[in-house]
């Protein structure tokens, strides 16, 4: 019995076929695959897409025989050697107990999938945020934005939440997969909002609109999205973020354009119930203001065209050296983020 990393295309095909027999699909974003081989061929396999473990299967006759334990130990150490210590895993709910026996902790599960983590703890991370930002236990409203870039629409949403609640948490998507880097998106929001009483700007962390909880959000195609893609993210917010910060309302803008955001909003409406407050999107000459509209305008018409849509802080950033580079990049590529 030997554990090997899959490198050759024909080996990958063998894994694909093995997974198919176990009703799993070899996913496109996988960047590392290990296999355990024996005389009968593949005995077990496990893959990772950056920090997400997926496509794990063990031949039936080899279950409960330490094969998976060996394979997973190896995968955990290989990832750690590359600096990836905090891992996530997607598994079918009936395999949750097996993952738990390997040291994984369940975060949330749906009827179809369990989402777990290893080497990190959502409770710990949210506790750290609470302490770092000095948050108390009072009822709060929350807004989750990528702000790629920040528009007057985002500010409108934050104002609406602030009108109803004395404390508002503005979560900024931490994942760095957007045109505007996280650090800069975060700084622009700080600049635009200033030291307003009752408003706290904080990162979403690794568990909210992250590549781990909502990979589809960052995909280049947004047409084939359905509820299942947004559900893990929505349930994680409901089960962990809401109680940890005492969030009683989440404010979102209604979505006339993007199928992605629409499905996300619909999923939230279903699972958050009356805690979800959908606000009419701010419009300009009857055109809804959105970050994607701003990016389109930047691409086609340049900086002056977006002036009415964005606050001074966004404009000032775009005029800076860093901002110019971001505009260049938006012009060069037509990916979504």
């Amino acid at each position, binding site marked *: 019995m030997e554990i090997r990393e899959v490198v050759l295309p024909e080996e990958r095909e063998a894994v694909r076929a093995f997974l198919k027999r176990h009703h799993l699909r070899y996913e496109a974003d996988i960047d590392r695959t290990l296999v355990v081989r024996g005389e009968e061929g593949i005995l077990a396999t496990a893959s990772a897409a950056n920090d997400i473990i997926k496509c794990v299967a063990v031949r039936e006759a080899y279950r409960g025989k330490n094969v998976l334990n060996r394979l997973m130990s190896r995968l955990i150490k290989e990832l750690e050697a590359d600096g990836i210590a905090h891992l996530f895993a997607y598994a079918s709910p009936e395999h949750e107990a097996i993952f738990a026996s390997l*040291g994984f902790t369940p975060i949330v599960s749906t009827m179809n999938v369990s989402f777990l983590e290893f080497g990190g703890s959502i409770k710990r991370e949210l506790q750290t945020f609470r302490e770092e930002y000095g948050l108390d236990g009072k009822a709060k409203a929350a807004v989750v934005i990528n702000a790629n870039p920040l528009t007057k629409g985002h500010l409108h949403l934050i104002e609406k939440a602030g009108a109803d609640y004395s404390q508002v948490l503005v979560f900024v998507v931490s994942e760095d997969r957007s045109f505007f880097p996280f650090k800069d998106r975060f700084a622009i929001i700080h600049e635009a909002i200033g030291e307003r009483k009752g408003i706290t700007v904080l990162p979403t962390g690794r568990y909210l609109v992250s590549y781990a909880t909502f990979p589809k959000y960052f995909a280049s195609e947004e047409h084939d999205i359905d509820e299942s893609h947004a559900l893990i993210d929505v349930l994680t917010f409901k089960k962990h973020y809401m109680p940890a910060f005492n969030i009683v309302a989440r404010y979102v803008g209604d979505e006339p354009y993007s199928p992605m955001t629409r499905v996300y909003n619909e999923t939230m409406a279903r699972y958050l119930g009356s805690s979800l407050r959908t606000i009419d999107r701010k419009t300009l000459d009857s055109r809804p203001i959105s970050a994607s509209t701003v990016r389109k305008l930047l691409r086609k018409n340049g900086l002056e065209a977006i002036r009415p849509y964005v606050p001074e802080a966004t404009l000032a950033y775009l005029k800076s050296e860093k901002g110019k580079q971001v505009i260049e990049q938006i012009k060069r590529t037509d990916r979504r983020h």
Partner: protein
Amino acid sequence: MKETVTTGSLESSDCLIRLEPSEQLEIDLETDVHEAFYEHIHTLISDTLEEMGVQSVYVRCKDQGALDFTIRARLIAAIERYRELHDG
């Protein structure tokens, strides 16, 4: 880039130990034999840390029914590698 050190394995009769930077001493122990040996293993880990002069680290231990000397060996190896990593 790499901040953590992991030793051992998840195999039966072994344990997986991971050390992470922390400002205090924290031990997160999960064991198959929770009820009976949790306190025993916890003490074993904290005694070994003290013996090695470790004052601040976050220890995660996933025990799969390892014997004392295995846990001790895994922990000592982890501490030595952790020191190499962080003290150059």
